[in-house]
């Protein structure tokens, strides 16, 4: 394209202004890309899958859900009663028991707080999102950690962020003074780390450890069971092959006489998460329908301002180009091209840069919302970020481009007396 050099030189003409515009664009595109990443992540988490969907079984009427651990065995199978019923294989279920406490009961701070999920270690790599699809080398490394959790029931696996916060190292031992299980203070050995990413702030350990401690509790407490004993099972996750199987399992579970006190419900992970996300509805609504459009509008204005000034400064020059035979639409292309180079080029840089910095250098964006803590910049968000900002650059430059198009040669050169 023969005009490209001309466009490029125009952008370079006022380097300071172009640089400032580019910097403004970059910041805005950075924010847009992050917001879009979070939104697309949440969309994905709450969109229903057709195949291999995860379901959550929880207490029916109460949040937080607390079911007796006696439910675990049968729930994990999907509560089959008749020979024709769906029976969920062992690898496709997982139980969660939440255990939380502090490292220092005298001085409780957010940093020395620890919240961990008690579960079957082998389920970490079959049932946990992302951990079930690790790249081979990461999978190999993490399966070693899982093996340690199995062998050493006091083992604890942490995300790197969590580890940094409590200022410990792998191999060290910690004692947690429980908050939700009063008097069940567990000592752990940190045996390894979660792979980078989604679980950077998470913690998990072998459920055997918690349940054994609960079992021995009466011996030291005058024969009385622990007050929490009625409800130590918080969630059961089941994986089913398709929606049909989901409906069957759901009917099996919800109609089973085994779970009457308390009653349970079974829903897809997506709808479970959606329900959970209700609390954040306004925040997400704001991000989607206020923040993102506002940024796009601001971007539009930034570009319109820069290009508008540059066109006004160059009215004479544009008139000269017209004299030389540039047609009105060619002048428009020159101006739009300048905006697209400035807006599109920098947004490309910024969006890709954001992805690189957040994903590769920072290992994800810390933005705790619901039970998600870390977000990755998705390729979707990068593509949309670039598309939106290039569109904004285009929109912002339409008016200046039209005014360039309509430059009247006779007006510019006449010395109107």
């Amino acid at each position, binding site marked *: 394209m023969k005009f490209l050099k*001309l466009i490029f030189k125009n952008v370079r003409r006022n380097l300071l202004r172009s640089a400032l515009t580019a910097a403004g664009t970059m910041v805005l595109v950075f924010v847009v890309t992050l917001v879009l990443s979070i939104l697309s992540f949440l969309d994905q988490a709450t969109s229903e899958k057709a195949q291999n969907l995860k379901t959550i079984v929880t207490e029916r009427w109460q949040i937080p859900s607390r079911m007796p651990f006696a439910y675990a065995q049968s729930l994990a199978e999907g509560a089959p009663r008749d020979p024709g019923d769906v029976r969920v294989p062992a690898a496709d279920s997982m139980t969660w028991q939440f255990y939380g406490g502090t490292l220092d009961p005298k001085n409780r701070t957010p940093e020395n707080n620890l919240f961990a999920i008690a579960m079957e270690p082998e389920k970490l790599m079959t049932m946990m999102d992302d951990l079930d699809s690790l790249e081979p080398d990461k999978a190999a490394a993490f399966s070693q950690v899982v093996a340690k959790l199995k062998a050493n029931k006091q083992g604890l696996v942490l995300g790197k962020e969590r580890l940094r916060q409590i200022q410990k190292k792998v191999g060290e031992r910690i004692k947690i003074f429980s908050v939700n299980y009063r008097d069940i203070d567990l000592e752990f050995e940190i045996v390894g780390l979660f792979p980078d990413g989604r679980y950077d702030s998470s913690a998990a350990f072998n459920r055997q450890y918690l349940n054994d401690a609960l079992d021995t509790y009466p011996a030291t407490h005058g024969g009385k069971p622990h007050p929490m004993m009625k409800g130590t099972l918080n969630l059961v996750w089941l994986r089913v092959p398709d929606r049909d199987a989901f409906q069957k399992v759901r009917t099996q579970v919800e109609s089973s006489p085994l779970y009457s006190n308390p009653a349970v419900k079974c829903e897809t992970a997506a709808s479970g998460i959606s329900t959970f996300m209700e609390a954040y509805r306004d925040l997400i609504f704001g991000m989607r329908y206020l923040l993102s459009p506002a940024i796009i509008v601001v971007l539009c204005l930034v570009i319109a301002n820069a290009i508008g000034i540059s066109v006004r400064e160059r009215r004479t020059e544009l008139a000269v180009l017209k004299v030389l035979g540039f047609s009105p639409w060619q002048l428009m292309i020159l101006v739009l091209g300048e905006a697209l180079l400035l807006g599109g080029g920098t947004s490309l840089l910024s969006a890709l840069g954001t992805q690189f910095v957040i994903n590769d250098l920072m290992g994800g964006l810390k933005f705790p919302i619901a039970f998600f803590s870390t977000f990755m910049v998705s390729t979707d968000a990068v593509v949309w970020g670039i598309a939106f900002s290039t569109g904004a650059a285009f929109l912002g430059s339409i008016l200046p481009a039209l005014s360039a198009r309509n430059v009247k040669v006779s007006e510019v050169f006449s010395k109107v007396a």
Partner: protein
Amino acid sequence: MSSPIVRVIDVHKYFQRGSERVEVLKGLTLDVPQGEFLALMGPSGSGKTTLLNLIAGLDRPSEGEVWVGPECISALSETRLAAWRTRSVGFVFQFYHLIPVLTAYENVELPLLLLPLSAAQRRQQVLTALDLVGLSDRLTHRPGQLSGGQQQRVGIARAIVTDPTLIVADEPTGDLDSRSAQEILALLVELRESLNKTIIMVTHDPRAAARAHRTQHLDKGVLVDAPSMSHDFE
């Protein structure tokens, strides 16, 4: 000299100034033969630039017709007119109006970008044009690094690079010292002779007009026979 290349036929031009309609050209008729060097003189505000703009296809008359060669340019659409200008007219400005961020070479190349030419063809034409105006050694200079006379030479090179039949110049020496002015005039005369271009030049300088074949005087929107001296030296 041969048949007219430029024919201005009973042209009126009105401008709206506020609520008032100003008639700047009042039924003006003018023929310019092929190969003529015509000077247009007249007091400030008499309509010289307006007339030149009409002839160069930069504006359209309110009434009347303007013909250049076989083309009635007053009837062309704006886009067609733009394409016509690229090939048929070279415009030389009083204040040169080179693009400051482009080199002399790139400035001269600008009109060629609009024509279906290969890079090699463009290069050939740019070098020829710059050679004709004697600036072969200033290709990579920017306008800011050139003297006024040199800038005007670049302006002339840009005007002739597409090999147009017609060159229009609006006070091309108005911003130059007398020596540079003489050089530019000599250049225009030489171009006319060697390339047989038709040149229409607006000027306030009688010495410049003296270099032309013919001088036409404009006063209050009409051509007049005798110069109204009092105005010219106001």
